[in-house]
């Protein structure tokens, strides 16, 4: 009964959100589209960091792989952008899988270091292969649809974000999700209970990277200009901050964090480009004092309220 009611609320919320851009101007439509891009990025990073406890610093790099793969295919080979998005997603998955096999056997910190290195190498390649990538000038790419329309892009991004969230939801609620959390809680105990820890990690990393690749590819075809800003560490730390502040390891956390921080950064952008740094510092404080982020604070508050009510109702 309660589950059905929850579904209805969810459906109504999505429908209301889908109707929202009709009431907004193009600038605010743009903010919603960018927010949806970050929902995809943060939700897929959370799948890895929040549910298996592995911190990748290459998530923005994987978005870059998706964006550049699709963009270059379109510009150099005239490939349809939709096919390019699929190809970019696949390429990010392949890179994720290979990197995963390479370093996940070693565990923990090695993934962080390897992905950081990977991210830097990607930057060097993008900057040096000017002929192909146009370096910091940026690569001009065609859009996903013949006639440019913010509304159309909004629905494309909404659909893609819903697909991303559905994939994450399915994984964490399937049996494999229990294995994810077991590995995060205690990998030695998990292994003793029959969990193939390396396989679980590689799977999470591959799926997470593929979803980042898809988000990046779509984003490139929305901006119509792909620059090294997409696979930058700035971007990486923004996604990290969104997830941590919203709530690491919770389903709603990255969604809240992505919208909250993207909207906020539009307002504080006027004060200079230090907002990512500021978010990073806030994320650090949140990680220390409220490791489950905004969602955790909210749940804690509700639990205390219910407890107080139960105590009040008792005779």
């Amino acid at each position: 009964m309660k589950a059905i009611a929850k579904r209805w609320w969810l459906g109504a919320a999505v429908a209301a959100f889908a109707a929202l851009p009709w009431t907004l101007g193009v600038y605010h439509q743009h903010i919603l589209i960018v927010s949806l891009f970050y929902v995809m990025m943060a939700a897929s990073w959370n799948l890895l960091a929040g549910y298996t406890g592995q911190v990748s610093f290459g998530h923005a790099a994987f978005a870059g792989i998706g964006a550049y793969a699709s963009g270059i295919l379109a510009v150099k080979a005239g490939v349809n952008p939709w096919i390019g998005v699929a190809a970019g997603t696949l390429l990010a998955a392949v890179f994720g899988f290979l990197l995963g096999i390479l370093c996940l056997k070693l565990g923990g910190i090695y993934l962080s270091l390897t992905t950081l290195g990977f991210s830097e190498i990607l930057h060097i390649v993008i900057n040096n292969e000017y002929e192909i990538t146009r370096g910091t000038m940026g690569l001009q790419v065609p859009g996903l649809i013949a006639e440019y329309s913010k509304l159309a892009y909004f629905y494309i991004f909404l659909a893609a974000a819903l697909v991303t969230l559905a994939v994450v939801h399915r994984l964490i609620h399937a049996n494999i999700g229990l294995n994810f959390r077991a590995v995060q809680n205690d990998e030695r105990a998990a292994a003793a209970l029959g969990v193939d820890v390396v396989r679980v990690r590689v799977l999470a990393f591959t799926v997470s990277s593929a979803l980042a690749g898809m988000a990046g590819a779509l984003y490139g075809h929305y901006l119509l200009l792909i620059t090294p800003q997409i696979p930058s560490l700035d971007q990486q730390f923004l996604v990290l901050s969104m997830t941590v502040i919203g709530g690491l390891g919770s389903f709603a956390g990255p969604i809240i964090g992505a919208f909250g921080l993207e909207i906020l950064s539009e307002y504080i952008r006027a004060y200079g480009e230090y907002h990512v740094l500021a978010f990073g510092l806030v994320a650090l404080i949140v990680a220390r004092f409220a490791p489950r982020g905004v969602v955790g604070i909210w749940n804690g508050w509700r639990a205390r309220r219910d407890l107080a009510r139960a105590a009040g109702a008792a005779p």
Partner: protein
Amino acid sequence: MALLEGHGVSRAFGGVRALDGVDFAVEAGTIVGLIGPNGAGKTTLFNIVAGALAPSQGTVRFDGRQISGLPAYRICRRGIARTFQVTRPFGEMTCLENVAVGIINRHPALGQSEWQDRAAGFLAEVGLEAQARTAAKHLNVIQKKRLEIARALATEPRLLMLDEVLGGLNTQEIQEAVGFIRELRDRRGLTVFWIEHVMGAIMQAAEKVLVLDQGTLLMEGPPAAVVSDPRVVHAYLGD
């Protein structure tokens, strides 16, 4: 042929020889006790059998096949489950979910309602049914040890390895626990390999006892023979 056999099992940590050429056998259907003073190498031996550590030398065979060198999860799937002396619950997960991890890796196709039912059954078996929805980090030490046993059983092992599960219990509770393990063995047709510091309990429960001292097998035999052996008394009490 015994269900579990080790030949010349050795393991060094830096310069410390924690195990030095240990031969042992655990016969199917029996309870075999493993005793010895602190630091004798008992837990190290369990870690090697379970695949948490590789032996520096020697081999371990289970059901006639070599298992040393296999990763822990494969050894678990072959039918060996172990508890940890210092318990390792998945703290942020409920007791039900803790047990479910053991179940779903044995039966990957099982749906949620099925594994929930089965997990509840294992929890009931160790008397934790009331804690099914409690996060494991909130359990007390004794409850955590019970959870370790429920999780191990959930993998449907043929060999159950217990590492000091009686710590913290009083005499009365130890009696009950010994009865419980024996009954478990009979009901499930298990083989049990059991480390315990509490000598009395293992003497009651085990059909055979192995004594480790400073990484070597001091002696083995029926409990009565072991307790009265002067070498064992010496190892435990010193000069």
